[in-house]
């Protein structure tokens, strides 16, 4: 998924404040161009997070949302949880890149619990999905059993309704539009027909200016 992470990183506009979800989206961090001044936010109260440098020891008072040690860029700020979620829901979180179990054709996100499991861990996902100005999902196109993760309706418990705008997978980049999923790009050697076969809802070819790669 590193090519996908690199593509997400390249697509982020300069200067934005971004929250990267636990799991796959975390990988986007290592592909960011420092010249583009992208600010990484962590919901536990960091604005200006960075990965540890090679050989840099952990400071266990500086951790990310996945509880792993990270570093701070010059100019970073620490927030308490209240200001951190004010940032999230109040319009200052430009982009969220979240992992997901499923995304529906209407942009519903299922990411925090599995259907039938008694316990789930929502963390900040519901607030981030509701609050971020632009919600993107980065995930494998199918689950480990080969089942589609882009679906007509979510089978797993929903995190937020109608909030996902774009999905980056190992097979394609698709947008959620009023008419459903529209494919903006296909990975090399992937055809629209193949993609349709592993997607649980209709995938439309891009009719607009974004030619399929």
């Amino acid at each position, binding site marked *: 998924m590193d090519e996908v992470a690199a593509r997400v990183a390249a697509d982020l506009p300069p*200067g934005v*404040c971004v929250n990267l979800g636990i799991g796959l989206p975390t990988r986007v961090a290592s592909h960011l161009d420092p010249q583009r*001044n992208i*600010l990484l*936010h962590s919901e536990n109260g960091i*604005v*200006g997070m960075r990965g540890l440098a090679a050989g840099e020891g952990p400071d266990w008072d500086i951790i990310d949302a996945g509880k792993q040690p990270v570093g*701070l*860029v*010059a*100019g*970073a*700020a*620490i*927030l308490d949880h*209240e*200001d951190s*979620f*004010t*940032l*999230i*829901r*109040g*319009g*200052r979180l430009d982009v969220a890149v979240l992992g997901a179990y499923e995304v529906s054709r209407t942009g519903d996100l299922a990411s925090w619990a599995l259907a039938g499991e008694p316990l789930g861990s929502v963390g900040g996902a519901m607030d981030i999905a*509701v*609050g971020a100005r632009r919600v993107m999902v980065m995930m494998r196109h199918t689950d480990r059993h080969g089942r589609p993760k882009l679906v007509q309706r979510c089978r797993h418990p929903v995190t937020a309704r109608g909030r996902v705008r774009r999905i980056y997978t190992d097979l394609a980049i698709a947008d959620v539009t009023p008419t459903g999923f529209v494919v903006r790009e296909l990975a090399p050697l992937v055809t629209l027909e193949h993609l349709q076969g592993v997607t649980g809802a209709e995938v439309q070819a891009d009719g607009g200016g974004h030619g399929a790669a």
Partner: protein
Amino acid sequence: MIDKTCEPLTRALAGIEDGMTVLVGGFGDAGVPTRLLGGVAALGLRNLTVVSNNCGTGELGVALLFKHGCVSRVLASFPTQVGNHHFRRAYEGGGLDVEIVPQGTLVERLHAGAAGLGGVVTRTGVGTVLGTGKPVVVVDSETCLLERPIRGDVALVRAHLADRGGNLRYRRSSRNFNPLMAMAATLTVAEVDEVVGAGELDPDDIHTAGVFVDRIVRHGGGA
């Protein structure tokens, strides 16, 4: 880190337009962004909604917005003060709508605006004229008012120190409403005494994170 310092003043105020809602930090004369307010008054804007704890005194700060007829609506907890002749004149001349908001309700309405919440549920104001006609919510058989969020198109705040990325520190009780308002607007402009480089403020010592601040001007700069 992006450099958010911004001169001249007119550039720092670009995008502020007639009819917008402007949050103004400060309590009395402490923590008031006087240079920014002078600049807004000079722009000759009209029909602003101003949110400010006080309505200014003398010939500086919020008072100038009333003097120059920029304001059609103001939300304040304490508008009546000795020396507020410009506010008085605007009010008595008509055409100025004044909404008195209890100070703590003003705080929470701004917090709701800042934090993307749908409203505030508070006991403050229940059974008073300031609660009359407002929707209520009963919580554990206690009646509370449901107050609306306040969000600014613009916040004008006053800080002591900034780094170039917009991280702010305030001095003493001039902090007051400034951190809250800095978080509650779409465009936040800070007026500061001094600007230092990125990384010169310890991350633990920052009162307002730079992510909430769009532009910085120096307090001592020109009109």
